[in-house]
């Protein structure tokens, strides 16, 4: 049991960035945090593609939704707007995934552009750091019955929260930076 625990902890820490006890984020550390944050965004992208796919079984989609939800800080929301209206429609993350799963297309193809932009990290009053990663998603939905083919490209601005945490391993206190996803702004683009 103890071995399993240590193994789990090791895996957990390998996905985090171990650091010395200090609060400032150096350029090198920022780069390491960016990589970790990008991994989470990649996971989210993968999950969105699976949830949106019509080939995914209902039970599997629900399991993936659980995994996707775990990437987010509690209460995170998706704010969606279209080209026609800049007004933002708000959805809880789970609700957004459920809507994505329930889309009435026979074939859905979600792909991502090979580009991302990562902001600087800014410190909040509570000491946590916040940043934004921007990615672009291409959605294509086809309805066989009506022959309708819907396409759009959306820009996703994803909040990341970066927090220094501590854990005990074999009696030693190890500090590491953990990344959680936060609110996501989804904007339809003209591309």
């Amino acid at each position: 049991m103890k071995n399993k625990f240590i193994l789990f902890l090791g895996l957990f820490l390998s996905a985090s960035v171990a650091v010395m006890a200090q609060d400032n984020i150096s350029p090198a550390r920022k780069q390491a945090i960016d990589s970790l944050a990008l991994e989470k965004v990649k996971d989210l992208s993968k999950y969105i593609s699976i949830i949106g796919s019509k080939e995914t079984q209902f039970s599997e989609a629900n399991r993936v939704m659980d995994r996707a939800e775990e990437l987010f800080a509690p209460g995170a929301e998706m704010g969606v707007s279209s080209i026609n209206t800049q007004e933002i429609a708000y959805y809880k993350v789970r609700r957004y995934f459920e809507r994505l799963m329930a889309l009435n297309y026979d074939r859905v193809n979600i792909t991502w552009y090979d580009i991302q932009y990562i902001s600087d990290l800014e410190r909040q009053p509570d000491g946590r750091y916040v940043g934004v990663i921007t990615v672009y998603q291409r959605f294509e939905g086809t309805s066989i019955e009506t022959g309708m083919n819907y396409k759009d490209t959306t820009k996703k601005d994803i909040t990341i929260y970066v927090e220094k945490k501590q854990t005990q391993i074999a009696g030693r206190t190890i500090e590491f930076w953990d990344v959680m996803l936060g609110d996501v702004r989804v904007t339809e683009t003209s591309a």
Partner: protein
Amino acid sequence: MRKIFLIIAFITAIISNVPGQGIGSPGTIKDDGRFTASTKQLNQFFRRFNGEESVDGTVRYYPGDSLYRNIPLRKGFLNILFDNQTSSLSPDLKNQFIQTTLSEVYPHYLNFHREGWYAEVETIFVFKGKREKATLIMKIQSEGLGYEWVIDQVIFEPFKNLFNKPVGEQKDFLHPLSHELGFMNLRRAFQDSNLPESFTANSYKPDYLAIFLYEMKQNNLRFETVSGLKFHFFQIQGWYFEVNQFNRPGFNTGWLISNLVRLGPGDKETILKYIYDQE
């Protein structure tokens, strides 16, 4: 002509520097350069303006890096940070601004944490059952261990005519010997008058934000959504500019300068009053 060539060369450099790595596995779509060229975040506007990142945005430059705030890099960026499609900014004015900003003796930079820039956020609230627009003027302030955005002012149409204080001989008043009567005539101010603001000092200015917050606490105001956003900058000495988001096809997209004004004496205060809707 030379300038157009420079802009084309810069955009070409951006396109040819499209990063190979993407967020997805194989099957990702290759950006044709449009998203790379787009100023995707206001953070990128700051970095490009200051010359603090690579042409394709994948490398952040820090003090000590050879290209950090490099003048040719900044010049390339500044030329693509203007809305070149819909805003009618004169090339001469843009050149003067770029020259001031890139001055070798006294270059100007934007600073995220420094005062002198504001967000103007268009929002929709439901006020007493009716959908109403509210404009929030917001600014960055330091707080606790870091920084936060705070509301500095609200512009809300239903409050506009709430206080309409008459002036001069037409207005109701408490006569100058009211004190001798123990201010018994306050009844005129608070019961008989529909304009109790008539009885306030010349210096009185209604605090609309306080009323706005009060109405919210009384559950008369409910936030619905955000419908627009732009930024106002006064950080470059002698200049004001506005930054808007342009979501359209092409390479000149994202957060771009849409309005530029060279400031004369008193102009800054006039523009600020206009933004804060106090004129």
